[in-house]
């Protein structure tokens, strides 16, 4: 592939869209517009199927995926996650003690806005906060254990629609808006935003990959990627996305990434959790 690109400065581009007069933050309206965009762009794809990423848009890939789903290669990670989740901490407590419903079938409620800290709490962050509260060291956000734990939790939530809340709290709205801005902002030497690939060009091939639609993209996380030969977290995916556009990635679970996850999950509200997913 020839990414021999020589990109330099970027002009501010004036496109046809008029900038909306009042910059009022309206997540519900955003989510409706977001969903409509994809439904109109891909009229033959069932809404829930967007949670299956590129497989909703490409028949040949879908057949390969369905073949692998008969006995998915991520099964070992899933089992490891189940064991890790059940293993007690040194103080005798468990991950289950940190979550509603003992952590089973709750993945669709993350990220959450925490009114106390004023922060977006992702599932990965909640897991590490749980560890630290119980006197354990945090584990890597991009490592196999975090991937396995979140895979197991996603698995227990399969089919449950994303149910992300943006409370009427200016800090929550700001976090949401920051996530949205991150999503649409071009960055890196390739001058790509998340939206360049996942809004403007889903279904197209970039290098060999068929780009996933942004609608439902996080429903499948964490994902087993053949390219990785293993399960990877949302953090790992964001980091690799930034690298792919030739940007220096932020630290995993940086505020920007958490806000991005908040925005992207919110606009996919109503679509089912399909994780752990598989991707090439």
């Amino acid at each position: 592939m020839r990414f021999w690109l020589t990109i330099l400065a970027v002009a501010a581009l004036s496109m046809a869209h008029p900038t909306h007069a009042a910059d009022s933050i309206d997540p519900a309206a955003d989510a409706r517009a977001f969903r409509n965009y994809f439904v109109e762009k891909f009229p033959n794809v069932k809404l829930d199927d967007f949670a299956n990423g590129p497989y909703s848009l490409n028949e040949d890939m879908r057949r390969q995926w369905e073949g692998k789903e008969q006995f998915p290669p991520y099964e070992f990670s899933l089992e490891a996650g189940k064991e890790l989740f059940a293993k007690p901490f040194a103080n005798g407590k468990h991950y289950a003690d940190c979550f509603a419903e003992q952590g089973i079938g709750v993945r669709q409620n993350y990220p959450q806005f925490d009114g106390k800290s004023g922060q977006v709490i992702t599932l990965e962050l909640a897991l590490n906060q749980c560890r630290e509260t119980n006197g354990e060291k945090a584990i890597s956000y991009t490592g196999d254990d975090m991937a396995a734990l979140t895979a197991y939790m996603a698995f227990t939530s399969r089919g449950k629609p994303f149910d992300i809340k943006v409370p009427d709290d200016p800090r929550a709205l700001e976090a949401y808006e920051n996530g949205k801005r991150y999503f649409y902002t071009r960055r890196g030497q390739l001058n790509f935003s998340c939206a360049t690939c996942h809004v403007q060009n889903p279904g197209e091939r970039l290098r060999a990959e068929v780009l996933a639609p942004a609608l439902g993209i996080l429903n499948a996380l964490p994902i087993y990627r053949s390219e990785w030969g293993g399960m990877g977290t949302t953090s790992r995916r964001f980091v690799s996305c930034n690298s792919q556009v030739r940007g220096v990635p932020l630290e995993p679970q940086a505020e920007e990434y958490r806000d991005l996850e908040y925005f992207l999950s919110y606009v996919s509200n109503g679509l089912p959790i399909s994780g752990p997913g598989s991707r090439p």
Partner: protein
Amino acid sequence: MKKISNALWSLASLVSIGSAALAASSEADFKSAYARADAAEQEAGHLRNQWLAAEAALADARKAAAKQDFETAIAAAKEAEALAKASIFQTTSEKEAWKNLEIH
């Protein structure tokens, strides 16, 4: 390759690279070139939008300087500075431009 057709390659104000050959490149010249590049890259970091290539060019500059090859080191530092400034320009112009991509 199927192209990302909407990638808009409008390139505007360009950061120029000093290409004047330096007859005798000195360590002092390198240090000031490196300091400028490093400052720009740090600003890009503050803006949360560094480019991998800028980091790589800075590393090249350090490597060459360690070998006393100041001519190469200065060239790499200047490249790093140009890249860092381009990333800063990108961040600045995206402050409002991101809204053009938004789905309404």
